């Protein structure tokens, strides 16, 4: 029998960064305790992990770093309840467990040669960051067509990864559009919800894939907008969230119809979702 799938790899918090003005999203850089764990933990963008704090429990989080960034993992975590509050109280050096990688990644094999439209809203942008880092890697970038990113937040101060976003906006090989629901004094970029920006920019659907992560309300308006731009159900890729425990398709908690989001997802095409009950 292989490794016990419930046993986390030992790691430590190496660094924490507050991501937003409301100070409720923190990025944690985790370093594995031993090289063996680091070597075994091989993830791809779109996958997630269960973070474990002994005595406090476990919870699932998307992996925000790309494997091309080297050993260690990034997670950007919003303080939402018991576990995440405990996590936010920890300082660098604190031990933490990591169980994974879990779930199906973004369909990497379908991306070469495609124009990529990446649409994100709120703190669900985490795994999209991993995807963008991977796509922009010098050994990778030439395999893909154009890359267009649309990322929205409530206010400018709620956008995560702001210095990275600014760097990407200076590059010629990726186009990054930021939008906020409510601008403040210095804001020079889009104002309005993500689907409105999408309709303004009108990216072409030919030879393109759209990868979308965001809260339900953003999805509700973004998906029809993509359809009217000509994106087929196969060309729209989404990542979903459901309450989870085991992360390996056993505890029976995260299903949508016959699919387990932890094991068969969290990444699905819109066509796959269309055949499932809308219970998410």
């Amino acid at each position, binding site marked *: 029998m292989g490794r016990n799938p419930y046993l986390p790899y030992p790691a430590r918090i190496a660094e924490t960064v507050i991501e937003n003005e409301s100070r409720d999203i923190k990025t944690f850089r985790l370093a594995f305790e031993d090289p063996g764990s680091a070597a075994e933990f091989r993830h791809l963008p779109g996958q997630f992990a269960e973070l474990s704090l002994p005595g406090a429990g476990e919870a699932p989080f998307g992996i925000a770093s790309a494997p091309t960034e080297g050993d260690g993992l990034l997670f950007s975590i919003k303080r939402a309840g018991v576990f995440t509050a405990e996590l936010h109280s920890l300082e660098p050096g604190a031990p933490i467990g990591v169980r994974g990688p879990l779930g199906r990644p973004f369909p990497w094999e379908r991306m070469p040669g495609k124009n990529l439209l990446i649409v994100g809203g709120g703190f669900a942008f985490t795994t999209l960051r991993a995807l963008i880092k991977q796509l922009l890697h010098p050994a990778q970038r030439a395999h893909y067509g154009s890359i267009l990113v649309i990322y929205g937040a409530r206010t400018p101060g709620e956008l995560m990864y702001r210095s990275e976003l600014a760097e990407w906006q200076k590059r010629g090989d990726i186009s990054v559009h930021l939008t906020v629901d409510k601008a403040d004094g210095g804001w020079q970029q889009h104002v309005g919800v993500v689907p409105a920006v999408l309709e303004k920019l009108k990216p072409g659907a030919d030879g393109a894939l759209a990868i979308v992560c965001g809260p339900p309300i953003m999805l509700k308006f973004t998906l029809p907008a993509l359809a009217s731009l000509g994106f087929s159900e196969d060309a729209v890729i989404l990542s979903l969230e459901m309450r989870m425990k085991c992360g390996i398709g056993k505890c029976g908690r995260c*299903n*949508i119809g016959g699919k387990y989001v932890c094991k068969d997802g969290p990444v699905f095409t819109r066509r796959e979702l269309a055949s499932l009950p809308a*219970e998410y």
Partner: protein
Amino acid sequence: MTEKLLSLANLDPWLARLRERGSVYAPGTDQAGEVALREWPQPEPLVLDYKNFREPPKAFFLPRNQTLLYFRDGKTVELNSAVPETFLFGIRPCDARALALLDRVFLDGDQNDPYYARLREKTTVIALACAQAMPSCFCASVGSGPGDGSGADLLAVALESGLLFRAGSGKGEGLLAEAADLLAEATPAAKREAAERIQGVTAQLTPVPTADSALRLRGSYDSPLWGTAGQKCLGCGTCSFLCPTCHCFDITDEPDRRVRTWDCCAYPQFTLHASGHNPRPTPKERWRQRLMHKFRYAVENFGVPFCAGCGRCIRNCPVSMDLRTVLKELGA
């Protein structure tokens, strides 16, 4: 498939031999006067003609509380205490079939559950064909039946003068080989008697002809029947906890350990997100999930309904919910 006869006089000596190798559990009358699986031997005699136990034997494989990991000196570790050899004698075929169904989830090859796997490996299952059906039994409508040996290492059929054993696994074949001196060849007359007894019980069952197709019908998901059912359901979880195939669990921490406990899709917290969003906000969606999981999603994923037709959820629901009604009305 080997078949052998054990005389009733040899039953206790045979169980005593199994007892030398591990714990033996067999049907007996408990303090409350109910027939249950009890550690053998007991002063009271074995009971072979009981209907079925109130509780299925799933706790032998998925304990209600099970420590997965311990926290020791700042480390999260597995402390595997040795799992004792256990023999379950006399569980009913529906409950044994439920184990074959649970195997699909916990021993799926892709990602085995090591805790379940250990208990399943160390536990030998000897099923006992039914002596009589209850009005709530419908095993034959979900691919099982009073003589179903799937999920058991041995199936026993109680005859006038003894037990006919039928091996269902390598482990079962081994048991018969070891007990050769206590066993006799199965005569054609004994095999005939066994078949007749099983047919007799099968004939007592009320079929639910649409059991494995109703929920796969177009429109079943949106049926108004779910609303009607949801208004009645109290969300108490009795149906799930007593179901031999329900296996959803929670994982929570105590200060020194991580524990897995039974959980239930009838509870609102089961799917509640930290944001407050709940994909199954009312009893309607939750009751639909329980039935859809068993009769549609499991069929899609495994080709069989995740129900053994034991009838426990029907017998024990405090507000008399009966899944057969929904299956019949949707399938009509």
